């Protein structure tokens, strides 16, 4: 093999090492925060490892998964352990992203190079922020000013942080164990009740973010918060084994005593595993999944594959093109692994909310792209797959800043059969249609700037994808109608999401009928596929913004800007490309429309 052939294996090899790197990463020194992160707790109705709570909370507060501390950076688990055991120290960590200049000046902070501020820095302005947020809360979301939305958002984050600090035990109680022994004494000697009442009042005044204490039952309702556990202890039962174990963990962490922390942790884990082996194992697996971050790694691999492919085309290096295909396959494997794990973890079909729909749409599009690449071998389908895989995972990444992405299913949607048929089919249709859009974008660029007809392979692929999108959208829409008829007694209700699905069907039907009748040819099909992507994006995210109907769940402001950017980019591409094509036609550099080869 020549030296030039080396990247064909080197790049994918490096990618594989990177994907598997969490396996080799050593645990950070000091307190075993990672071990604590693997313990099961109840949060938002679901049993999950504390690690998921830590990551989701930190993402929600700061938009990142790490915090810069005075002694180097802390991961989410280390940060949460600090918050729970040494709240005064945690208050000094800069975790609140504040962009709004009005808010900054209200808090007496200067708009320097800093974007993140600590609780300590914001503490002085808690009152005014809360008042602004209350005023904003009473307004219709569309009528809030940018400042008001920012104030509301910051107040919610501050509230979450304060609740989190007090989730295990009131923050001003230095030692949890001594407080518990006071409780136990009070149970026998009612005369010492005075201080205890105040403690209990504190415990129940702030609703805990998560419920850590096990009571013996392994159902979600068998996990209670520390406040309820303390109530039980005070009512005569005495502190439970599980509550005492959490006290040992918190106190050892507060003293920075790694040896006692480890001992308390392994004690707790042994007890928990004996009582609820399945729940403990699943929490551990989920924490491992979190550490692998398969969608983040997939995102990186799609990007590298895309760059390798473009470099290969520019430099005319076939080895880079081969490397790109292998990287795309690797990224798809990582993406699939993450998807399968999530599906098994939740015991639900792959699409249950907006976040998982983004992951799944990307997966379908990449899968279809790789299948097409196998047949056409032009690299074009790989390019489309990389672009869609990368963008959908970026979308998912942004949607993940709103808390845990494995949510419990609302009663209306609680039907595995219909979720796995209707929702999965519809989202597969989105995937096929968006891949067609990506291919059409590339085909149009080539037509305009490489002067000439698009290559037949691209047109064939777009055509096949539009057919697939029509079938999947139609079948999916109809299945949705059947679900609605079955569950609510109406087949079709002109709900915005239903209309969105219908528009995708109509759009593809128009494109294909126009093609069959010979009214559009290559260019027309390409344009229809590009605009089809706009229709899909509106049906997918746009209709949620109308805020009415049965499907109006899970909408975000950031999605709105993304949607506008996507539509703007497609429109700009169409205008620029056609301006170029028409100018070239006028100057006689291109064969005019009539002489283009007719479509098959």
């Amino acid at each position, binding site marked *: 093999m020549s030296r030039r052939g080396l990247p064909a294996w080197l790049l994918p090899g490096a990618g594989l090492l990177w994907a598997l790197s969490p396996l080799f990463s050593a645990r950070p020194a000091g307190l075993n925060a990672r071990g604590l992160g693997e313990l099961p707790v109840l949060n938002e109705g679901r049993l999950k490892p504390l690690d998921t709570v830590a990551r989701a909370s930190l993402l929600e507060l700061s938009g990142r998964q790490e915090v810069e501390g005075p002694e180097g950076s802390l991961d989410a688990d280390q940060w949460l352990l600090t918050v729970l055991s040494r709240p005064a120290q945690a208050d000094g960590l800069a975790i609140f992203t504040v962009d709004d200049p009005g808010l900054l000046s209200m808090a007496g902070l200067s708009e320097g190079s800093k974007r993140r501020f600590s609780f300590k820095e914001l503490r002085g302005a808690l009152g005014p922020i809360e008042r602004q947020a209350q005023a904003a809360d009473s307004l219709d979301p569309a009528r809030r000013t940018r400042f008001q939305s920012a104030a509301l958002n910051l107040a919610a984050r501050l509230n979450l942080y304060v609740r989190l600090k007090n989730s295990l035990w009131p923050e001003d109680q230095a030692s949890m164990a001594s407080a518990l022994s006071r409780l136990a004494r009070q149970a026998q000697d009612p005369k010492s009740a005075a201080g205890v009442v105040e403690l209990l009042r504190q415990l129940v005044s702030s609703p805990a973010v998560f419920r850590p204490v096990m009571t013996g039952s392994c159902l979600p309702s068998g996990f209670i918060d520390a406040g309820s556990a303390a109530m039980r202890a005070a009512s005569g039962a005495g502190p439970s084994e599980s509550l005492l174990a959490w006290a040992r963990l918190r106190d050892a962490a507060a003293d920075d005593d790694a040896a006692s922390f480890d001992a308390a942790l392994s004690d707790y884990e042994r007890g928990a595993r004996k009582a609820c082996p399945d729940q403990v194992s699943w929490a551990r697996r989920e924490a491992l999944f979190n550490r692998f971050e398969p969608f983040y790694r997939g995102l990186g691999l799609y990007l590298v594959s895309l760059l390798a492919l473009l470099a290969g085309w520019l430099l005319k290096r076939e080895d880079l093109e081969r490397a790109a295909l292998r990287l795309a396959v690797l990224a798809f494997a990582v993406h699939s692994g993450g998807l399968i794990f999530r599906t098994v973890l939740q015991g639900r079909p792959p699409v249950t909310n907006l976040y998982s729909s983004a992951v799944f749409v990307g997966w379908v599009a990449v899968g279809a792209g790789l299948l097409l690449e196998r047949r056409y071998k032009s690299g074009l389908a790989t390019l489309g797959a990389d672009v869609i895989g990368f963008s959908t995972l970026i979308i998912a990444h942004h949607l993940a800043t709103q808390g845990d992405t494995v949510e419990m299913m609302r009663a209306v949607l609680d039907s595995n059969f219909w979720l796995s048929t209707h929702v999965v089919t519809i989202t597969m249709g989105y995937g096929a249609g968006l891949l067609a859009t990506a291919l059409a974008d590339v085909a149009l660029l080539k037509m305009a700037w490489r002067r000439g007809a698009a290559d037949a392979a691209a047109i064939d692929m777009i055509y096949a994808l539009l057919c697939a999108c029509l079938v999947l959208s139609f079948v999916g829409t109809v299945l949705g109608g059947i679900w609605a008829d079955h569950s609510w007694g109406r087949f079709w209700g002109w709900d915005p999401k239903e209309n969105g699905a219908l528009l995708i069907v109509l759009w593809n039907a128009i494109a294909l*009928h126009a093609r069959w009748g010979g009214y559009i040819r290559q260019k027309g099909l390409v344009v229809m596929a590009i605009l089809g992507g706009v229709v899909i994006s509106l049906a997918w995210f746009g209709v949620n913004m109308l805020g009415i109907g049965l499907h109006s769940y899970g909408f975000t402001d950031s999605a709105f800007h993304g949607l506008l950017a996507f539509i703007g980019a497609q429109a700009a591409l169409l205008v620029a490309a056609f301006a170029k094509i028409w100018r070239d036609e006028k100057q006689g550099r291109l064969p005019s429309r009539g002489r283009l080869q007719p479509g098959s």
Partner: protein
Amino acid sequence: MKDSLPRRLWKLIGSLPTTLACLCGLALVVTLCTLAQPRLGIYRAVQVYIDSLFIYAPAGPLKIPILPGGALIGLLLLLNLLAAQIRLERSWRKAGLWIIHLGLILLFAGEFASSLLRREAQLVLRPGQTLSAAQDSQHVELALIDETNPSSDRVYAISEALLQRHGELSPPALPVRLRVHQFDKAMQDDAVAGAQADVEVSDVDPLSASGGRWLLSLGQPGARFLADGRRYRLLLRPRMTPLPLSVTLERFKRQTYPGTDIPRSFSSRVLIRENGRSLERPALISMNDPLRVDGFTFYQSGYDQGGVSILQVVDNPAWSLPYLACALVSLGMLLHFLRRLSLSRAAA
């Protein structure tokens, strides 16, 4: 030889450009309807854009039709499909397309049939309450109830359409003569928000009520009077649909996930007694799991304070048509595209 005008027209109706125009028009109307929904509510938006022949623009007192409405386009598309179907080549090659188009015709016909035949009403049940008639949330009626017999009432119901005509009402079955001076109804979010009727009864016994003319409002107990020695009550109420059975609510249950407000399930435990049978049977109605009895389907639709359960009752004789239509279209698409795929494979 030149075709005659009807023939040419028929050809135009069945042509592909007509199909394309209809599909584009439908896409436009659906888009407009969706965009209007936050402003008008789903029910009104569908009335204005979809269930209408034309979409009007108000210009002072006049209404000018500016666009064809969903109903007109749908009708045209149906004709187009029928015409195209008749002209379509009858061969195995086109079998997939045939089936798709037949399915689409059936889908349109089915939606049309169910919009005519489908009836929808609600049961609002307190725990322990028994009902044998469901109330319609979109229509009201004027009810004249003969309460003379203490063991059973005799109800004369006058529909909204008759009330809207105003004037004298004296069908032979009605024991008294009624005159409607005024009738108004207000809708909000697809449901009746309020209604009023100014009604005069001619044969009222002057001792029992003064004047014999009342302003009735929805939700109020109505007027009582004597006529011809019989005791009557006149009231405005939601349109009632008698059911061939009675439903008793035993318990409504709403569950949330522990530690959250996320609803996990809604369910109502009911007792069903079909008319003419003495035996009651228990049944559980929950979200995504309705109860079907005697052609009626009962859905868990909502709830209210104090354990009140709201059930939706639907009677739709045409319910099976969309299922059949969709099965046909899906089958046709599968056939058509698989055949094309295998052809292009063979060519490659």
